[in-house]
């Protein structure tokens, strides 16, 4: 299977007043294309830190990615991190230079985030800005990343302009169009509102089309410009040399500052009936419909506080999907929701995976949700990956004592007679984690080796790896 995302030896730490929190220690896993990878663990095990590290959203200070690799296809998402770390940790040069490096890399990640990897959070309310309508927020996201797409649609529509005019002059209704205008027309016909309204609508379309033609040149220029930027970004993501990368980033940063696209965003807010705006609105509506929001047209005009939790989570998912990301990271997407609403959202995620082929990383503490959703599961404990296995294998043949304990400590609605097993103790303090295996103070099988030696990751069967001294076999790393 093709790999969508590879995380290798990821190490993230937080430098706070009490000491250094070793939040992630050698986290390694792979996300395959089109699969749902579940990351499961308790509070403080580093699930969310992993997600934030992948998104490069770790707040600095106090957090910092120390080392590791994250690759998305051929693209190295950790690019620049060594440079940053070097600057911050060792050399401490002039602040100006330091800021430049960070700013440049920041631009690179802004392009990745939202466009190639999207993330949805536990609290949908916190992810949305309360002073803008749902529509504004979706369009903003489209604007930031998919301008080229919109411009292309407009261009193709404007190419049909002459057809439209001749069609109007001939006075016939029912001609066939294979573009946007055509579908609009057929929609109207379906409404059977009579010839008058069709004609009226046609007038409107032609009006709009005339506006098109007036602005056509401008749009074409914009499109060219936008495609150029896209090319640059594409290049940036690929393998380029240090020198070239810096120059591309500086060009892009400059573009971002002065760009016409930015000015267009302002226009959008003025509700200017610009074709770009109406196209973006249409796109937003289509997105909301794709996440099964009933009455989507109404919802677009609503403010976040007017919507229920489940509806908000759908809106957040719609925004995350606005640019057709390859990878979707869902951090506890249903924890704040009721069970019946949770069922709806899980259904939606399943559909996403099936219809769009999005690879999903599903982070949750709920082993039930993981069992329903995930193809493969990564179990984390205290910043370590302790076990990775296909979902079936993990639930029926768990290896690591922590996984076993976790599975046995869930009350089972399908088997109430089962006695709850208790993992004694609590998650350790990550400032001074236990030496050797971090699970050893709570493990009932712990022996002297566990207290001193960090267990290697061992492959016990195809695709099933476990980091525990109890098992012997081929060392994976």
């Amino acid at each position, binding site marked *: 299977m093709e790999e969508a995302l590879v995380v290798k030896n990821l190490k993230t730490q937080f430098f706070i007043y009490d000491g250094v929190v070793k939040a992630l220690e050698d986290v390694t896993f792979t996300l395959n294309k089109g699969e749902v990878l579940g990351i499961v663990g308790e509070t403080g095990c580093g699930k969310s830190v992993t997600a934030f590290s992948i998104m490069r959203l770790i707040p600095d200070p106090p957090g910092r990615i120390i080392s590791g690799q994250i690759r998305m296809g051929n693209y190295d998402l950790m690019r620049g991190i060594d440079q940053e770390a070097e600057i911050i940790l060792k050399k401490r040069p002039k602040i100006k230079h330091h800021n430049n490096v960070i700013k440049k890399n920041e631009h690179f990640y802004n392009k990745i985030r939202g466009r190639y990897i999207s993330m949805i959070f536990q609290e949908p309310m916190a992810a949305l800005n309360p002073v803008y309508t749902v529509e504004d927020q979706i369009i903003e996201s489209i604007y930031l990343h998919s301008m080229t797409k919109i411009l292309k649609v407009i261009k193709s529509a404007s190419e049909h302009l002459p057809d439209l005019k001749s069609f109007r002059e001939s006075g016939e209704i029912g001609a066939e169009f294979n573009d946007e205008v055509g579908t609009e027309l057929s929609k109207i016909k379906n409404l059977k509102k009579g010839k008058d309204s069709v004609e009226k609508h046609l007038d409107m379309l032609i009006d709009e089309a005339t506006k098109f033609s007036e602005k056509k040149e401008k749009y074409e220029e914009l499109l060219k410009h936008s495609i150029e930027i896209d090319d640059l970004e594409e290049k940036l993501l690929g393998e380029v040399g240090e020198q070239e990368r810096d120059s591309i980033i500086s060009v892009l940063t400059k573009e971002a500052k002065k760009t016409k696209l930015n000015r267009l965003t302002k226009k959008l807010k003025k509700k200017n009936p610009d074709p770009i705006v109406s196209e973006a609105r249409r796109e937003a509506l289509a997105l909301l419909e794709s996440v099964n929001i009933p009455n989507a047209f109404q919802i677009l005009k609503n403010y976040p506080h007017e919507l229920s939790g489940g509806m908000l989570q759908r809106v957040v998912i719609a925004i995350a999907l606005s640019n057709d990301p390859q990878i979707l990271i869902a951090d506890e997407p249903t924890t704040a929701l009721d069970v019946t609403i949770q069922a709806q959202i899980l259904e939606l995620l399943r559909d996403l995976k099936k219809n769009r082929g999005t690879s999903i990383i599903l982070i949750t503490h709920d082993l*039930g949700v993981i*069992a329903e959703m995930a193809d493969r599961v990564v179990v984390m404990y205290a910043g370590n990956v302790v076990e990775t296995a296909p979902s079936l294998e993990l639930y*029926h043949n768990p290896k690591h004592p922590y996984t076993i304990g976790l599975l046995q400590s869930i009350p089972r609605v399908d088997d109430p007679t089962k006695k709850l097993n208790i993992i004694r103790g609590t998650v350790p303090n990550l400032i001074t984690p236990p030496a050797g295996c971090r699970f050893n103070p709570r493990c009932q099988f712990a022996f002297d080796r566990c207290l001193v030696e960090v267990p290697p990751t061992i492959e016990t069967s195809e695709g099933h790896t476990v980091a525990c001294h109890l098992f012997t076999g081929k060392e994976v790393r």
Partner: protein
Amino acid sequence: MSEILLKAIGVRKYFPIKGGISGRTLGYVHAVDDVNLTIYKGETVGVVGESGCGKTTLGRVILDLIEPTTGALFYKPDEASVNQLEGLYTELTANGARELKKEEKKILGTTKDNIYKSRSKRKDFRSRVQIVFQDPVSSLDPRMLIKDVIAEPIRINGVPKEDGTNDGTGARVRLRGEVANKYVLDIVTEMGLNEDHLYRFPHEFSGGQRQRIAIARAIAVKPEFIVLDEPTSALDVSVQAQILSLLKNLQKKYNVTYMFITHNLAVIRAVSNRVIVMYLGKIVEEALTDELFEFPIHPYTQALISAIPIPDPTFKRQRLVLSGDVPSPANPPSGCRFHTRCRFAKEICSTEEPKLKEIRAGHIVACHFAEEILKTETSSSGIKKTRETAK
């Protein structure tokens, strides 16, 4: 079933919605609407429902922490008389509650034993009941040492004379000095904490430990009844298992009665003897735990049960995904409150409110089509049955 510990009749709690410049009452949130509830001594009653269903408000009203709009609460009542009262009340409200509000008040208000109306009863009642909250962060005063947190209810209420037993009539003693310290120490040791923990502030503890402290505070006065309001919802599963087993042990030792409020059906199944399902302020189904999970009758219960994620990828079952959201309790749907999301809804559901009726032994449901559903549907929505068919 054994002796009745608590009986609530016709409990309603409407929260006014204030608005406008003058602060007029624009309407009411029907948080709890006409609930009759019986709690037997020594049992664990699970109350389950989604957010906004009124389960938390019910817990507060039962403990007399907030005053209900109407209703009566009896503590260890005379069984015969209280049942008679309930019958009278049901008969009265059967013909449409609005017009009969006055008479209803007459029946519920004049009874001497009604805790909501009697000052002396209320004070005595407060010393016998306790509550444990969901959020262990905000439920402990951040500026108090753990020692003082746990000692607070003891200082106010004293403890039953004979340690460990609360005969319900016995006078209470106030502890002082060394004795009080020893008493607090005994309690925390029982919770799995040590003396050192007594001299710390709440923020120095993990979520699980804080919940232990909250339970210690509740159990310190040796209450007879504890409302557990989502006690494990904020905790990790491994810690949840610890807390659940602690609660079980305490129940055995002190013979205390629990009302366990949660949205987590798996936890409900693990701890409770009897389950009450609530939807928009109403009880829709009530049965013994196994009965409810194997033969859920109300369409809402069925959907709830089918929505529980089960930690077993091989477990296949019929998925009943409810459409839409829970309607606002400020403006509940007419008739059966569930009819907007119900897959069996017919005309009658939107006009006539279904009464709670006993469908099977001890199994009470509020649905117009309960009998039909029992005949045709339950076999496929109960959790045990599906498991067998899956194999």
